[in-house]
């Protein structure tokens, strides 16, 4: 196994606790706000209610209404307000209540959040975090399950990240808040209540993929809630005698090419798994750059297992829409093993 060891911050006392991803995110926010007065958390229902997913639970009580607060119900407003705060010494963290409710803020994100640093030759930077509960698998109705990462990942100037474990949720949110650049922090809703160990002393830079499982026959590359599907498929494939390496890209952009390419070169075969509709997606990009850079190592085309190119399914049809273990296994089977 080439699991990346989490580098430990020597000064902090190691504190490992088992918690949900939701709790890990909450802890990361609290720790970041305690560590740095300029960190502000705001959005819709993040105050007294603690957010519809309770990620901001207790922050207003602990840090006061000036540090964690509700805004009027207007996402472009929230985003533009954050831009101004970031211009003036603050580190705003905003919550978009659900993926599809971030769209009203799209102009602010694309035309300002992503570009202000570039526009001013770095005289102004945008140290802000846009938290987006995203994706499906929770039986949510329309507009509550979009996988919107491609819109952000295509936009130069943004850092787009997505944790798959409570540990990464904690460490990556801390890193995102400390980043001098704007970070779109995608929180897979489906994983909010999944549990795992969290060591709050672990700090890691963004931009580094994680090899979650080793294997020499095929690499499955994914992120967010698809990582578990990749791991489950890997377990089955192993029982059939195929060694599957699983890479969690974690940072969608800027992308850790080194880790990904090394894995694919070593295995000669690759699958990309992601829940978003496949067309012009982050999965397309991963496939494109892998074949551009690892072509001579490939025994078979790099295949994708993604959402269909249709609007996200209503709850009762979700199971047909979402990538699952069988679909990943089917894709592995199609990797030209006979040759």
């Amino acid at each position, binding site marked *: 196994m080439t699991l990346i060891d989490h580098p430990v911050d020597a000064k902090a006392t190691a504190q490992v606790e088992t918690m949900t991803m939701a709790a890990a995110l909450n802890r990361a926010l609290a720790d970041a706000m305690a560590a740095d007065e300029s960190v502000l958390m705001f959005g*819709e*229902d993040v*105050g*007294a*209610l*603690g957010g*519809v997913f309770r990620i901001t639970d207790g922050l207003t009580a602990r840090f006061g209404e000036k540090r964690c607060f*509700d*805004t*009027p*119900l*207007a*996402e*472009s*407003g929230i985003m533009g307000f954050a831009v101004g705060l970031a211009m003036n010494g603050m580190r705003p963290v905003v919550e978009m209540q659900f993926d*599809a*409710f971030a*769209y*009203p803020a799209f102009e602010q994100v694309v035309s300002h959040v992503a570009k202000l640093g570039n526009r001013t030759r770095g005289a102004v930077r945008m140290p802000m975090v846009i938290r987006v509960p995203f994706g499906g698998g929770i*039986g949510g*109705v*329309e*507009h*509550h399950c979009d996988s919107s990462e491609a819109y952000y990942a295509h936009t130069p100037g943004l850092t787009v990240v997505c944790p798959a474990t409570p540990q990464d949720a904690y460490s990556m949110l801390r890193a995102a808040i400390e980043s001098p650049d704007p970070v779109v922090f995608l929180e897979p809703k489906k994983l909010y209540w999944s549990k795992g160990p969290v060591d709050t002393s672990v700090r890691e830079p963004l931009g580094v993929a994680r090899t979650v499982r080793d294997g020499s026959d095929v690499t499955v590359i994914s992120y967010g809630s698809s990582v578990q599907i990749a791991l*489950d*498929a890997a377990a*089955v*494939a192993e*029982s*059939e005698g195929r060694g599957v390496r699983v890479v969690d890209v974690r940072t969608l952009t800027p992308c850790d090419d080194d880790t990904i390419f090394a894995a694919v070169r070593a295995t000669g075969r690759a699958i990309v798994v992601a829940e978003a509709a496949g*067309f012009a997606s982050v999965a397309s990009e991963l496939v494109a750059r892998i074949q551009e850079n690892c072509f001579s190592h490939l025994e078979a085309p790099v295949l994708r297992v993604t959402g*269909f*190119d*249709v*609007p996200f*399914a*209503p*709850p*009762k*049809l979700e*199971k*047909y*829409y979402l990538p*699952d*273990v*069988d*679909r990943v*296994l*089917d894709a*592995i*089977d*199609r990797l030209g093993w006979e040759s």
Partner: protein
Amino acid sequence: MSTSLDHAQALLPRETPVRLIDQNGAAFADDTYALPSAERLVAAYGALVNGRRLNDQCSALVRQGRMAVYPSSHGQEACQVAASLVLGENDWLFPTYRDTVAIVNRGVTPEEALVLLRGDWHSGYDPHRTRVAPQATPLATQLLHAVGLAHAATLRGEDTVVMALCGDGATSEGDFHEALNFAAVFMVPVVFFVQNNEFAISVPLAKQTHAPSLAHKAVGYGMPGQRVDGNDVAAVMAVLTEAVDRARAGGGPSLVEAHTYRMQAHTNADDDTRYRERDEVKAWVERDPLTRMRAYLSTAGLLSADDEEALAAEAETMASDLRDALNREVEVDPEDLFKYVYADRPAHLQRQWSQLQDELARSDAWASGADAETSGTHGSAQGNNGTKELAS
């Protein structure tokens, strides 16, 4: 831009919301707004009883797990009922997720209305049949659709009026602003009806706006604004009727704010004890729109005990039909995912559907006991991994 500035005064709402029947059921005269006819008030009361029953039945169905979620308009039924009763047959209604009672009152069946919240599909009725737009989730976006739809009717010389609903929270969205502005500039026959129920999920109105009232926003678009007691169905009907009549006569759009209260949590998934006092909620119980109307009608001799019983029975029939309907398992068809994305299914969606069909066929074969080796290319894998779910 209107040139006469003194006009501004005429656009401002009253300092207190229009009320025609007080909390004890006593009617009083108003200079501008006449009490609706006895017939309309009796019809409204029937709709209130039915609406309340629908709200409470839906909440019960959620508790029983027959439905995932229901945003109840319990306490707001006067607004729900008035919004649909004041419309003519060719008029349109643009509702939100909370306006199930209004759309049912307009002719959408409860079962069709609940398709969204049951999770069968994104919307369950043909908007053109009842002239009710799909219930909108992204806040304030539907207000623009309402303006466009009304404008299309005007261009064809039709006298359609459109009732566009939204909540207090939605007034903060940019689309609210753009919709009112477009409506005023094009003099479009739309009535913007804001149900100010004091909360946007957990956020109270004081954090939503610093304006004297939401109806005051109207003057910024050059349209009349009015405030009304949202728990007085007579007043809501009177104010909305005036607005609808003006719109139909070519007088353009208006903004009506109803002052009401969300008696229950945002949805059953919400925990309102986190952000409001029980006493605040209790204080609104005595302002219940049903109690008030019943008192008025009884005193006026317009509602007998028999009438009440009949209404209750009717509502009970509706509720029990609904329970039955929701107890029937609905067949969902995975092909629906691909059917409606485009008018004609493009090749790539046909390929994706074929892939899914192939998966389903293999998992059916597996589920029906066929040899695992023939049911899929990855053999044993299928047996281990949730193909049962696909076969359901």
